[in-house]
């Protein structure tokens, strides 16, 4: 591995290694998200029926297309680890940056905890289907530790592995679609019998937006690789936008297969762990059954792997800027990874995976993600106003500004309402947490931040300053 050979002598500067290409960026973004096609999105069916989940898939798909466009422009220009955190630092200020950093760390650590929990439970389910019984905890912890070890040892191998298992998981969705013979309507999939109208009307459709986020949650994680890609201007937009296209295809296929195989009342049932796997099971094909078991397991592992990568980089960046103790800003001299941040977050993810219910963990992850998306349109407006087109060289310039930013803000407001309908208490608790954290930062932590070091890009003075 390139990073293993990259040891540096004492006294030299040690930075993160620039070894990643567009395929790694794709693997990071799609790897984090694809698990959402295998499980989680189906709760949208419970809220709005099968068609409600499809509408949520399209509307939330639009939200994430705006996220991908905005992120591609800003991150390919602000090429720094921490992604949206580093962007906030440059365009808005320290308090916003601190909050965005926290959103990122919480969203990814919670998702990572949910992923490894699911991986352990899948092994338990697999053992049960073989007629044996086993505990899930050893396999949950094993998944977490093996992935943390991989992350500790270097980013190139971590994301190369993610590329392989993500591509394999995506392939199983296509195999299932082909295996269910879509060219023979009503022979295996029974859409005309199973599809109903909107069981809870249009309010149900809006409520479904909350879980529609699952189809795409985490694609913005590609930004965390910004400091480690060889060519940010090319790799980040290419990896992010092809990732978004992959997810739109996967979401469409997933919806079509599942609503054609399972009644909506079953799909939306809270205890349904993995609807694609269930669809393969009821098909009666042993091959599809095994393939989708492997695909589901791979998707959970790929997601946890990407989340460890992203949470550690956000935590590392905040440490490097002294928003948190600077100790976390260390880079491993041989593997060139943020090793202290990776190690620090292992026990936190383990506690959440083993002690907190999955639904709560996931809701906190979604809420933190949503807060991050709300920041993005504000960020975009300020970025274009402070550095108009032509004032700095951009890696990618997204079209139709300010339409995507306005659309993103509007969709975020509607989605907050959707979350409030089902999880109002958690939403308010999360807001209270961020307010308390902001007060701590403002009145205590900010004194340690070196204000002069905040702005790191070699850009001209922003307009109006």
């Amino acid at each position: 591995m390139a990073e293993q050979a990259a040891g540096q002598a004492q006294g030299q500067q040690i930075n993160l290694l620039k070894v990643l290409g567009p395929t790694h960026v794709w693997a990071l973004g799609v790897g984090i998200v694809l698990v959402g096609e295998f499980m989680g999105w189906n709760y949208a069916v419970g809220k709005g029926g099968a068609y409600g989940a499809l509408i949520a898939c399209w509307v939330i798909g639009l939200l994430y297309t705006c996220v991908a466009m905005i992120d591609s422009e800003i991150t390919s220009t602000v090429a720094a680890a921490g992604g949206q955190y580093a962007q906030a630092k440059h365009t808005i200020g320290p308090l916003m940056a601190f909050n965005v950093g926290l959103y990122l760390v919480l969203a990814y650590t919670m998702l990572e905890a949910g992923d490894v929990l699911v991986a352990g439970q899948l092994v338990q389910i697999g053992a049960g289907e073989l007629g044996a019984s086993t505990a899930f905890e050893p396999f949950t912890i094993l998944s977490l530790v093996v992935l943390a070890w991989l992350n500790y040892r270097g980013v190139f191998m971590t994301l190369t592995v993610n590329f392989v298992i993500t591509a394999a998981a995506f392939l199983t969705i296509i195999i299932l679609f082909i295996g269910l013979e879509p060219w023979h309507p009503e022979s295996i999939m029974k859409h005309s019998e199973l599809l109903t109208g909107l069981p809870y009307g249009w309010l149900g459709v809006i409520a479904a937006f909350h879980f529609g986020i699952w189809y795409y949650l985490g694609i913005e994680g590609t930004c965390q690789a910004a400091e480690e890609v060889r060519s940010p201007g090319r790799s980040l937009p290419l990896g992010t936008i092809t990732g978004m296209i992959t997810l739109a295809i996967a979401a469409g296929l997933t919806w079509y297969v599942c609503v054609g195989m399972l009644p909506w009342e079953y799909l939306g049932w809270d205890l349904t762990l993995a609807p694609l796997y269930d669809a393969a099971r009821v098909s009666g094909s042993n091959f599809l059954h095994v393939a989708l078991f492997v695909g589901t397991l791979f998707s959970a592992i790929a997601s946890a792997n990407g989340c460890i990568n992203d949470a550690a980089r956000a935590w590392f960046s905040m440490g490097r800027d002294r928003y948190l103790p600077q100790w976390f800003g260390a880079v491993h001299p041989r593997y060139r990874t943020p090793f202290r941040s990776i190690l620090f977050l292992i026990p936190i993810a383990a506690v959440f995976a083993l002690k907190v219910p999955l639904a709560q963990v996931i809701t906190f992850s979604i809420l933190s993600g949503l807060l991050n998306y709300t920041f993005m349109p504000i960020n975009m407006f300020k970025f274009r106003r402070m550095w108009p087109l032509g004032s700095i060289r951009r890696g990618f310039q997204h079209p139709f500004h300010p339409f995507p930013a306005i659309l993103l803000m509007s969709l975020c407001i509607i989605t907050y309402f959707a979350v409030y309908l089902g999880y109002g208490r958690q939403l308010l608790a999360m807001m209270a947490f961020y307010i308390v954290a902001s007060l701590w930062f403002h009145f205590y932590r900010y004194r340690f931040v070196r204000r002069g070091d905040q702005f790191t890009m070699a850009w001209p003075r922003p307009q109006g300053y």
Partner: protein
Amino acid sequence: MGLWQILEWAAWIISAVLLGWMFIDFLKVGREYSEATLLSSREGIDELELFGDGKKKGH
């Protein structure tokens, strides 16, 4: 002891070994390198500006 019990134990043991490896490496790095070296990383340089096509920056 059944196969799945053996697998459970194997999972715990592999986890402990990898955690131990990371922890020992973490201590070793702390001993061999100064804090200044470990914390010497700086936020990404703007490669687009450094290796750009020579376009003049607007001010």
